[in-house]
């Protein structure tokens, strides 16, 4: 009985923390972008502008919940919910610290990959249901982008799986006690991180919502909290990819002195900041460049990584 209550408490606290982080990232991103552009960013509402998030959310909740008359109503409403659900589901398998995770799934990594593929539906359905040309073009682009980058996202992780001998994320973290997987799996890390950026359609791979040509891409017709769901979903996805990178390549909760959760949080924070730094510094490539980069550079790289890792693992065993 007490275990059930404890489990529920962990579940809800993880949900709470993750959602809070997701919304606070709006503030963090604006402040950091400002820092890298020699500005201040929002610093008026509350200490350091922290209450900007509150002000923004009051605004976005008070907005009219507009569904365009030409849209496919049911699908239009479901689409933003899908991305939230999918990303929050992926958080269930992340081991934040020993004992602090929602489920100890033995196929945790596969579960994450499955969920991130489901995320494509959100964008595709949003683009389709909006029934407008910009949304459809954005939806098309993001489907093509996410599908092709998913291919080697999965492949890049197989090196880690081979070294750890498990799909369970907790066991993968435990396997890094001797040394972080970033060293033997450097190429795997690079490929995974780039695929992760494409998967969350963040800059420089934000072609689905390229403002300069597609207005806002797949969420051009969305407003109010439905748009907010896409927005928060994107920030949650950033947190997810950062947390996964930490768990897979940077030793998860391991670290001296500080408690495990703190180590996990610090490492994740660094990667979130790196995501924002990428946005601050890189322009987006052309669409065909994006595709050829994925298929001609990243896919061969991940395959080479896979083959070499496999060979090394085999040699070690014999």
């Amino acid at each position, binding site marked *: 009985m007490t275990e059930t209550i404890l489990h529920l408490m962990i579940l809800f606290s993880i949900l709470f923390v993750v959602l809070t982080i997701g919304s606070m990232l709006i503030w963090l991103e604006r402040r950091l972008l400002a*820092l*890298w*552009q*020699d*500005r*201040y960013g929002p610093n008026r509402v509350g200490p350091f502008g922290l209450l900007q998030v509150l002000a923004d959310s009051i605004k976005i909740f008070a907005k009219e919940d507009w569904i365009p008359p030409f849209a496919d109503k049911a699908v239009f409403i479901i689409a933003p919910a899908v991305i939230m659900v999918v990303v929050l589901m992926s958080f269930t398998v992340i081991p934040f610290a020993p004992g602090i995770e929602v489920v100890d799934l033995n196929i945790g990594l596969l579960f994450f990959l499955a969920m991130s593929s489901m995320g494509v539906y959100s964008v595709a359905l949003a683009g389709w249901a909006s029934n407008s040309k910009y949304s459809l073009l954005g939806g098309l682009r993001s489907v093509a982008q996410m599908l092709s980058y998913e291919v080697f996202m999965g492949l890049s992780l197989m090196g880690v799986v081979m070294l750890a001998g498990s799909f369970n994320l907790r066991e993968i973290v435990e396997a890094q006690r001797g040394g972080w997987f970033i060293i033997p799996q450097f190429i795997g890390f690079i490929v995974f991180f780039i695929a992760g950026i494409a998967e969350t359609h963040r800059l420089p791979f934000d072609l689905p919502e390229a403002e300069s040509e597609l207005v806002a891409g797949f969420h051009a017709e969305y407003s109010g909290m439905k748009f907010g769901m896409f927005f928060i979903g994107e920030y949650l996805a950033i947190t997810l990819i950062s947390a996964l990178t930490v768990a897979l390549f940077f030793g998860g909760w391991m670290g001296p002195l500080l408690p495990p959760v703190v180590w996990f949080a610090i490492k994740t924070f660094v990667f979130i900041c790196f995501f924002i*730094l*990428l946005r*601050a*510094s*890189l322009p987006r490539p052309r669409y065909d460049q994006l595709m050829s980069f994925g298929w*001609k*550079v990243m896919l*061969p790289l991940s395959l080479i990584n896979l083959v070499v890792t496999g060979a090394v693992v085999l040699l070690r065993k014999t």
Partner: protein
Amino acid sequence: MVSVQILALIRFFRVKNWVYMLSILKSITTVFMTMFRKRATIQYPEERHYIPPRWRGRIILSRDPDGEERCVACNLCAVACPVGCIALQAAEDEHGRRYPEFFRINFSRCIFCGYCEEACPTYAIQLTTDFEMGEYVRQNLVYEKEDLLISGPGKYHGYNYYRVAGLSIRGKDKGEAENEDIPVDIKSLLP
């Protein structure tokens, strides 16, 4: 068939592909280093930018050192104004001294070009360094004479138009102005 695959492999390992990557890393580090630079923002209500004294801001009407209105209602400013935002009505007091009965500037039209100040023969109308004159009601941007008149001489301290002009007013007859000779008596035959 094999040669095609070899070609693809060669293309994959071409140096060009990887030089691009280096330039990307370079731009990331450059942007990261801007973190340690001073921020360019001036946080306006608390910090203020330097405003030069000849700034063309809110228009005022000044007074001469004796405390009288400088404006002689000559209408030159209203003529010079390219947007026609100045309106005034001339009047004369019992000493023959001209003054504006009303003087009205519509600041919702004013473009702060400073032509009125250039045209003014008596230094009466002047532009100041104040620029914070936002209003919620448009009508409040129409300034009347009592809003425009200030108590001091503005940018030109010692200047008094009637003290240098050959015009008789109360307390100063013709020829009593600064650097002025007594007028020639045209009725006299003496040289």
